């Protein structure tokens, strides 16, 4: 293709047998560590989980009993699992519905905030640096009925009658944890949208302004359509993240009260490490895997089809 290509080719031919075999072996040598790690810690466990799903085993002794598809039949009719899966779906839907609009508004605000925008962006981003355990513990006390600041704030602004036992009430617990998830991840999507807005060509908005278009029109008619691809990516990320959620909810509620905030992952954890049902816990994990992969591939295909159309 290039001059160097032509010059190097004879050298390759003349390198001899040893160099040639090194050249053919080289890809294998470079890939070996990555493939080994992934085979041991990702592929094998994945297959093993399906194997364990066919056992009745407490994980301790050697009394594992092969029960075929019994666990899978149990899973299919296990209302606790499906309620947990439904909570994952609710988490996904509300994550998208709450995070996207707020993140978009904040991105537009910072886009127009001038000099203050840098420092605001830096401060908004702080929750993303926190571990979900830290946030889980922090918000457990933030929501506390008696000592928590949330009820104190409501009281202070005259909305004291809205004070609640946020994490202890079966009707509120899931919403309360979803709010924390949104609080943490909104800045992530905000930065994503800011990058999208920054890539909108300034000349086009200048030209539109000269033609008499208002800022509002430019936003709705030009910038928002320009962000379509970014928003789609954000939705996919947010949904996939929500289906796999564990840490924060495990720390804040443990899935309670009475399973009100149970997710597939917390349900799996409870089965394995609290009830010592390794077999059935693995069935839950494998079922979760199938659900996540199905939804993710549908979403990815869907978003890719749009990508090529636009």
């Amino acid at each position, binding site marked *: 293709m290039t001059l160097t290509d032509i010059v190097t080719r004879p050298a390759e031919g003349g390198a001899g047998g040893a160099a040639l075999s090194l050249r053919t072996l080289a890809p294998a040598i470079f890939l070996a*560590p990555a493939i080994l790690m992934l085979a041991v810690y990702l592929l094998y466990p994945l297959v093993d989980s399906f194997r364990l799903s066919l056992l009745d085993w407490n994980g301790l002794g050697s009394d594992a009993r092969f029960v075929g598809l019994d666990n899978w039949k149990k899973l299919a009719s296990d209302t606790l699992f499906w309620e947990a899966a439904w909570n994952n779906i609710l988490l996904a839907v509300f994550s998208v519905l709450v995070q996207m609009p707020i993140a978009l508004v904040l991105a537009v605000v910072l886009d127009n905030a001038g000099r203050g925008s840098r420092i605001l962006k830096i401060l908004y981003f702080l929750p993303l640096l926190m571990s979900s355990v830290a946030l889980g*513990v922090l918000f457990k006390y933030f929501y506390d009925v008696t000592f928590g600041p949330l009820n104190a704030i409501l009281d202070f602004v005259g909305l004291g009658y809205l004070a609640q036992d946020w994490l202890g009430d079966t009707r509120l617990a899931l919403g309360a944890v979803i709010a924390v998830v949104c609080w943490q991840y909104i800045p992530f999507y905000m930065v994503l949208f800011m990058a999208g807005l920054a890539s909108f060509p300034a000349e086009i908005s200048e030209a539109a302004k000269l033609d008499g278009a208002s800022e509002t029109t430019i936003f709705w008619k030009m910038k928002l359509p320009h962000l379509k691809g970014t928003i789609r990516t954000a939705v996919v990320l947010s949904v996939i993240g929500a289906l796999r959620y564990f840490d924060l909810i495990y720390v804040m509620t443990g899935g309670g009260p009475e399973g009100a905030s149970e997710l597939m992952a917390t349900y799996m954890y409870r089965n394995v490490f609290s009830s010592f049902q390794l077999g059935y816990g693995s069935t839950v994990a*494998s079922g979760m895997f199938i659900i996540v992969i199905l939804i993710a591939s549908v979403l990815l295909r869907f978003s890719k089809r749009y990508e090529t159309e636009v």
Partner: protein
Amino acid sequence: MASSPVARATGRVAVPVLGLFWLAVTTVPFLFMVMTSFKSQQESFSSSVWALPEALDLVNYNDVLSGPFLTYFKNSVMVVVISVLLIMLISSMAAFAFARMRFRFNEAIFGLIVAGMIVPIHITLVPIYLMTRQLGLYDSQFALIGPYVATSLPISVFILTEFMRQIPKELEEAARLDGCGPFAIFFKVFLPLSGPGLSTIAIYNGIMLWNEFIFAYVLTSSTGTRTLPLAIWDYQGQYTANIPAILTVVTLTSLPLVVAYAFGQEKIVKGMMAGSLKG
């Protein structure tokens, strides 16, 4: 008229109002955390949530730091540093092969590895737990390194492959003319030129692993081997009603990343946004 005066006035008011509103939403929980950490247990029960601490009381900090907190910290540093170095080496080697070598199934293997990004790690939890017990690694810091490296590889290989594809072919050709084999080209040309890509994956994985909870929770059990996120968990079990002490632990565990952030905000924001490649 570009925009009506009314619209412009609304914008002028709305921007700072919304900007400050979200600033409050973001910072109030942190203020509560830091303020409470300076209070005594007695004070936290009796005074209002909003009352400033009576004195800049460092008793909680003293208590926590004189306990095993530093062991957790040391374990975190060790596990994260070793894991991140391994991730950088292993993923850059693989990325070099994908970006620059021609071999059968190149695209297919790359696709499979990248698909690893959407696998929920929870399915690997029980098998890895059993494997770790069998290997005799259970409840040691080394138990965490394998899962940490493996789960970070898909996204890291993806980022570095994209990065290495941008490195001009001419540099590689020149090195080859000088008689360099694939290993010399990788170590002398590609690694030095991949600095920005490597720093992105180091920051992203470093932060993710620093905060990692579930593997650490399942694969370690004693104070001597556990990492910082577990410190919060363990202290929570131990102090139960001592909210100021627990929030002191939360503050202290968050401090290292906040300090790092103070020095390189742009880099860290950029590194964290690498997560937007997931899927």
